[in-house]
């Protein structure tokens, strides 16, 4: 028998600190697989966020840099401009990319920097204990919205991907999900495409990944993937946005 599925070379063989059933682990593997498939392990430079994925650089087997909370795209812009021959990506949560980092996100996209962005939308702040994120759904209970998010006082779930798609310099945006093996395979294709675009100098590419956070959604891993499928993906429709 031949081995047909194993760990990508770009994913270190170390245990992660993520909770059981957390989507970050799947997303890390998909990203590592894309790097392997495209043969860019010696050329890629990742920028890790602040959030649960803060030590992602310990898990990937290629060069990485850490940015202050929300500033990943500013750091990535600098790296890419100084070293245009490298393939530069950021990996950011919804708090990082769409709350504290909204400014960097919008302006980097508007400048059309030739970067790849992996945006993990889990509708919550995981690292700090489950507070409301810009992407938290209406009615969703979090540590800072104990009665559920209310549009009158907290506004609506922020569809940052749709907002960014309005910018002329943005080349590619796709929203994918991790709620089943079939959707994971689609996510894998989208991540590879976002890297391919950078290799071909096409410009700013972003993949938004709907990702379960069973711990702070107060669900089992099973219930969490079901919630992504039945509830979250209704608010954040899947597919190519641009």
């Amino acid at each position, binding site marked *: *028998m*031949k081995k047909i599925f194993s760990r990508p070379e770009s994913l270190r063989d170390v245990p992660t600190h993520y909770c*059981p059933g957390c989507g970050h*682990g*799947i997303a890390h593997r998909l990203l590592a697989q894309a790097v392997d498939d495209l043969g860019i392990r010696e050329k890629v430079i990742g920028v890790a966020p602040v959030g649960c994925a803060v030590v992602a650089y310990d898990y990937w087997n290629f060069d990485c840099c850490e940015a202050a909370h929300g500033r990943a795209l500013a750091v990535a812009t600098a790296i890419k401009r100084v070293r245009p021959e490298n393939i530069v990506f950021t990996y950011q949560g919804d708090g990082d990319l769409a709350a504290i980092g909204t400014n960097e996100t919008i302006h980097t996209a508007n400048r059309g920097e030739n970067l790849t962005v992996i945006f993990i939308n889990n509708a919550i702040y995981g690292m700090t204990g489950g507070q409301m994120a810009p992407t938290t759904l209406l009615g969703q209970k979090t540590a800072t919205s104990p009665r559920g998010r209310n549009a009158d006082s907290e506004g609506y779930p922020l569809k940052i991907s749709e907002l960014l798609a309005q910018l002329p310099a943005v080349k590619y945006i796709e929203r994918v999900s*991790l709620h089943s093996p079939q959707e994971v395979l689609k996510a894998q294709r989208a991540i590879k495409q976002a890297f391919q675009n950078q290799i071909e100098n096409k410009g700013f590419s972003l993949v938004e990944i709907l990702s379960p956070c069973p711990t702070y959604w107060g669900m089992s891993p*099973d219930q969490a993937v079901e919630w992504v499928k039945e509830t979250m993906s209704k608010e954040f429709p899947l597919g190519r946005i641009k």
Partner: protein
Amino acid sequence: MAKIIINREKCKGCLLCVSFCPKSLIVADKDLNRRGLNPAKTKDSSGCTGCSMCAIICPECCIEVYK
């Protein structure tokens, strides 16, 4: 002919593989691993087709598939 190998020490027992195996060949082990978690284990690999659904959904990348 296909089979999977689950690394029981790396498994965190999320059991997403159990839900997504189309042949229901995976179960939770009653014995704890060294982390103190009930890892996934194969109940019976005779019907395994090597479809890799379990490995694709595994957040720990602790399932290898052979065919």
